[in-house]
């Protein structure tokens, strides 16, 4: 099956810093989503991005499907950005396959 690898596994930032999270996938996929899981466990959709670039406030994402990777950029990080960021890809029939996540801690 499709393998999804995320890096780095852990990240500690000072408030205001920028960061880039990476997601590599092993095969062609129908789609790709980025999620943020907050400290209370709620999974929140950030981007639905099979290809190209999207931006939403301080967050942006780029997927290069032909090279099988996606990047999530966080600019001017805030303490509320803390949590786990998951990349998930869809194979057959919208089956989401998640990576292991990047655990982000933003300190004031």
């Amino acid at each position: 099956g499709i393998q999804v690898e995320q890096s780095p596994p852990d990240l500690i930032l000072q408030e205001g810093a920028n960061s880039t999270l990476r997601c590599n996938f092993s095969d062609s996929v129908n789609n790709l989503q980025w999620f943020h899981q907050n400290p209370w466990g709620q999974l929140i959709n950030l981007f639905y991005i099979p290809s190209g670039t999207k931006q939403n406030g301080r967050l942006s994402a780029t997927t290069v499907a032909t090279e099988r990777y996606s990047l999530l950029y966080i600019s001017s990080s805030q303490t509320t950005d803390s949590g786990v960021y998951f990349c998930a890809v869809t194979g057959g029939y919208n089956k989401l396959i998640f990576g292991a996540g990047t655990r982000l801690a933003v300190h004031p």
Partner: protein
Amino acid sequence: EAGVAQSPRYKIIEKRQSVAFWCNPISGHATLYWYQQILGQGPKLLIQFQNNGVVDDSQLPKDRFSAERLKGVDSTLKIQPAKLEDSAVYLCASSFTAQETQYFGPGTRLLVL
């Protein structure tokens, strides 16, 4: 628009007991998913429904887990009997169609002692 609702939010049981979780998807969403998230890992799909039919249950441990979606709306996931390794967060998600964005509920945290 109301999100995906799940109950209970927390459950503690002893091994070999039974437990059931409930999910109410976003109104109008035909596709419903149950995921298991073990601590430190990403969610893993257990079962996917399209209306009230099962699309994918390949990773559901069918000897102890069962799920149903009567009338194509609400769904229940049951574990009987529970094992220690079933301790996890059980997430329900729904999407308008199988090809669209999935929206997740808050999850049910299960601890099996």
